[in-house]
């Protein structure tokens, strides 16, 4: 049993962590909070600033800054110039960028099976 639990699997981040997006002007922040604190280090290793910038590249993102909160634990990503001018200038239906948490939660991560939430029936 322990072998199966420790086996590394590739899954969407959404099955390992949750998060929320918020905006200020043309700048977006997305938090990433692992369901199991034990997954924090592995997620932090894989969700680099460069990787997150790639996820938002098609939106015009110019930079990503990552803040680490190991006590919660959580990561906070601040993504620049990603909101097509922000809520007031954007032509995007979601000018606030609120749905972008789930864009980031769609990236693939590799973690031991024990950290992965089952897909609901």
């Amino acid at each position, binding site marked *: 049993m322990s072998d199966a639990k420790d086996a590394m699997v590739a899954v969407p981040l*959404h*099955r390992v962590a*949750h*998060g*929320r997006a*918020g*905006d*200020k*002007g*043309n*700048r977006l*922040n997305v*938090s990433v*909070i692992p*369901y199991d604190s034990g997954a924090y280090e592995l997620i932090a290793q894989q969700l680099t600033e460069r990787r997150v910038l790639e996820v938002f590249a*098609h*939106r*015009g993102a110019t930079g990503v*800054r990552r*803040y680490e*909160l190991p*006590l*919660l634990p*959580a990561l*906070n990503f*601040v993504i*620049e*110039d990603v909101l*097509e*001018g*922000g*809520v*007031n*200038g954007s*032509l*995007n*239906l*979601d000018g606030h960028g609120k*749905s*972008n948490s*789930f*864009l980031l939660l769609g990236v693939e991560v590799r973690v031991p099976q024990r950290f992965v*939430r089952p*897909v*609901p029936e």
Partner: protein
Amino acid sequence: MKQPFRVGNCAGFSGDRVDAPGPVVDTLIESGGPGAVFFEVLGERTVALAQLEKRRDPLRGYEPMLERLLEPILKRCAEHGIPIIGNFGAANPPGAARVIAQLALRLGLPDLRIGVVHGDDVRERIALAALPVYEADAALDMGGGDIVSANAYLSARPMVEALAAGAQVVITGRTGDPSLALAPLIHHYGWAYDDWARLAIGATAGHLLECGAQVTGGYYYDPGFKDIPDPANIGFPIAEVDTDGRLVITKAARTGGLVNAQTVKEQLLYEIHDPGFYITPDVTLDFTGVSVRELGPDRVEVSGVRGAPAPEKVKATVCFDGGWMGEGEISYAGPNCLARARAAAEVLLERLRLRQLAVQPRIDLIGVASVHDGDGGAKWRGYNGGEPDDVRVRLAVSARTQDDADQAAREVLALYCCGPAGGGGVRWRTTQRIRTQSYLMPRGDLAPGARVLSAKEMAR
């Protein structure tokens, strides 16, 4: 044991559920302890939209749902000594005060004390060219529109002054959102304005509560992954703060939703950039040492926040006329719907070129790729997945004039007869746009204050 002070949140934005306040007030009354409630209904540009409304009708320009929100709770709050604080003044705090005064008279509360905070409207005081731009907005192109509104983020202090003068309702325009919850705590406990440790706890309570159901399981709800009870009846949040500054987040009794470590963590980082340096007008917060602990069902203790002095400069948000947006949508469904939708998109873009309308367009294929796509449409253009059952084409344009925006949006309407085949359900509209940019103002340039009168005086 002495009861903690309870601060309840009754709205997290303009447009929130109007039946949320009742259970929050019920819970505060049943607790038997001291408390206050606040409404946060003023987003960054809401005040500009309110200014536009006030231009059309000088009596308006305040929160449109004001009476609907307050009528169920005003009398009970007055009778039980629960102050109501809200930024529902928007662009017209005296106008909101008159509405509340008239409501109070109708409810038999002629002596209700109403406080109105002034000083956030800085259109007369702000010299934009001389001020540094707030860093997050530095790259925005303002396009040189006329100023619609300019409002500084006031601190808790004028609200505290109103409470000290006996106000049972405090009406503000722009103020720091967390300050709305901090003010009654400063008033109740007599915290000093440089007691950074305690101010930090009160401001953190405000930060966690200011978006209403975002901390009580509402915006958290992700079926199968993050389930909550009774999502149609989410309880709004309540913070308990005791004399030692212990902070517990809970929610209204007998409601849906939940408060757990995860809901609190999500909201703690909401709209935060550097978690070690979160500026409010009252105190600068450092969340890097924060931990959360579940004490029991719907009870989470938040500890470890640190406070430092607020900066000397105050943020002021200026809203400019931002031209117009035109939008049109049309649906395609059934066999070959994706190809018909793509064809419609290409026809629309070609029509804008042929007519030489002065607009910047964007296309979405709702059901294929929309909110996660960029303005260039890379996701829908590159889509090679399965055939959807139903696609909705959306054209959005920005334009200087309403006529250009309208003419572009009407190109979607024209697809009814001009094709492609089977398009239906057209909606189109134009919207006046507001652009915002924030500046840093010297605190000394502001002259905030509060005026407190009875309902019968105010209604005159």
